[in-house]
């Protein structure tokens, strides 16, 4: 199974006026999240598997986006990215239980651990370094504990719960799919214990990470994913990477992307690159593409069929 998730922009372009002539009927009916809402709908309609609502302190807040995404579609999964400091693990689980109930289990968690201590401090989080990893471990343990067990009691360095655990009907839904990332031993330990999907960057050694995770978590198959930027080349393109760029390109930051490394090419070329990763065991692709709405359609109409075609060839070839 291949999963393609679109990383949403968190800062939609500012609204522009229509000029002096065109009649503008939008008025108060047209809120500041309208553009974002249309992008969520596009991802649903175009048949992507999910979207990632990034944790960007300068952008829209991820839980608000995730809830909107889940309600806007029927199939689209929403992965909310957040640091454990945002709430207690019990509250994070409770919030998620409602989203899982309303959206039939389409929620994912991308737990952001560490990062720039100054950014964390500005978010009201003084915990850093090794402590942040230990806290993330406790956070996920407690969240899964109250989700799956009742009564649930936990006593740790960061959290304590007494007689907790969800009752009917909050209990019994699938726990959100957990996405973690990183290549340090501590991050790999955390993923081995808690991740459903471990996310890499383009250029990371997929085989080595696979081996490290398997060694730490024998018998527990943590899936592998890659976060990357993509640009699907098309006729008449007047945005995206400079002309002449093709294949691997690490300049996406210049286009405002969060993920600088990525791939540029025709749908067939991109599909071939992703298929090569897929053959090495990568099943999730978290792609950043701009403008997100138009790229969602391009991914759905061009890249996904090409990727599916290659998978069919691989199956046929194996027969």
């Amino acid at each position: 199974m291949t999963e393609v998730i679109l990383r949403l922009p968190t800062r939609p372009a500012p609204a522009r006026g229509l000029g002096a002539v065109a009649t503008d009927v939008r008025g108060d009916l047209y809120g500041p999240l309208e553009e974002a809402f249309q992008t969520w709908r596009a991802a649903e309609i175009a048949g992507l598997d999910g979207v990632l609502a990034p944790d960007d302190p300068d952008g829209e807040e991820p839980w608000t986006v995730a809830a909107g995404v889940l309600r806007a579609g029927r199939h689209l999964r929403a992965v909310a990215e957040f640091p454990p400091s945002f709430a207690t693990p019990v509250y994070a689980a409770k919030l998620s239980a409602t989203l899982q109930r309303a959206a039939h289990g389409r929620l994912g968690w991308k737990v952001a651990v560490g990062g720039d201590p100054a950014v964390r401090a500005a978010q009201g989080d003084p915990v850093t370094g090794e402590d942040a990893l230990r806290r993330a471990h406790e956070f996920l343990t407690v969240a899964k504990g109250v989700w799956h067990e009742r009564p649930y009691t936990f006593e740790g360095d960061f959290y304590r719960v007494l007689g907790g655990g969800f009752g009917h009907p909050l209990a019994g839904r699938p726990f959100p799919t957990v996405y973690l990332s990183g290549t340090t031993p501590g991050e790999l330990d955390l993923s081995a214990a808690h991740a459903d999907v471990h996310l890499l960057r383009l250029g990371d050694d997929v085989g080595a990470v696979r081996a490290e995770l398997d060694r730490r978590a024998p018998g527990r198959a943590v899936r592998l994913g890659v976060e990357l930027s993509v640009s699907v080349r098309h006729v008449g393109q007047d945005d995206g990477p400079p002309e002449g760029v093709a294949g691997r390109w690490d300049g996406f930051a210049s286009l405002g992307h969060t993920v600088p490394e990525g791939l540029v090419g025709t749908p067939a070329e991109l599909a071939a690159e992703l298929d090569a990763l897929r053959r090495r065991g990568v099943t999730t692709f978290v792609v950043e593409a701009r403008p997100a709405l138009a790229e969602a359609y391009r991914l759905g109409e061009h890249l996904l069929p090409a990727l599916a075609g290659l998978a069919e060839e691989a199956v046929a070839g194996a027969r």
Partner: protein
Amino acid sequence: MSVDFYWRIGMHGDQRSLTERAATRGDWEPDGPGRIAPALRGGVPDGHAYIEHMADVARAAEAAGFYGGLMPSFPFTDDPWAAAGLLARETRGFRFMIAFQPGFLNPVHAARMAASLQRATNGRVVYNVITGGGGPAQLWWGDEVAHDDRYARTSEFLHVHKGVWKERPYTFDGRFHRVENGALPDALAAQDLPEIYFSGSSAAAIDAAGRHADHYLSWMEPTAALARKFAAVREHSAALGRTPRFAVRVDVVARRTEKAAWDVVRTGFESADPAALAQWRTGDSVGAARSLSFIDGPVSGYRDLEVEPNVWGGFSLLRGGPAFGLVGSYAQVAERIDELIALGVDAFILAGVPHLEEARRVGAEVLPLVTGARRPVPA
């Protein structure tokens, strides 16, 4: 004057009537014929999650003229932040009053959540800040902070929450929260802070409310008790240089005739479990203990719980939630509401079971009779 009437959106299902205590709306009780959201179709769930019914209630309440909906929060309920995010686009002018305990959230992240939700709803987020009933429920949430300290934490949370929203860069080093150079992005900071409805009956609560509340929100109580409570809040707020506004959360059973309304209550009472009365005594919630204290003597019949005309203290026997509410004809209920307005109340959270149909009834039959005219308040 203008009075804001909110309605309640149940976060834990609903009953099909007040006369039978069985939650047939939502999945809080087992599958069975007649249950909806999810309903069974050919023996299998139809895929309509409870959120679909919440959306129906929100749309009905908006159409009936309500200003917004309160979304309560308890361990066994769905979560109001999540529900408000899901329902953001289901109504146009209707507000979402989110109940939450500040201690469970980081104040900076909460500011981001609220500001983004303000953007998604065009400014229709309202807070019901609660601080927790204590006892086993707080430990369930993973919260060991003692009762009075929880109000100190609530106070600090709201201080930081406002600070990071309105000042930049914002730095704070407190007992419960630390922020260094925090700020919301411009587009989010430009949103209005949600109005704060603040609940809590203890001295610590009234102190914290005085500092932060736009509205001091009380459960319905006998009139004289409410008047005393409001006087205490007024006095405390005046000392802080603030003028509080008051809100009351009150259930209503209103019918064309008073008899028809009492028939509903009597039927519900006769099928209720008397042992449920004892459950009021758990937890260290001052509010719950207060409700109980207004009932004098043994309770042998439903009218023993009518502490003053049309004010009935047995609602918690008929459905989950606060004890006191109004029972009477449309005109009587409107008169009692006018009396509360005369006490200084300018916002109400009304509720009726079932919420969907009763929202339409109360909006059509009771609200038009509320005049806001001052009437003598019974002693």
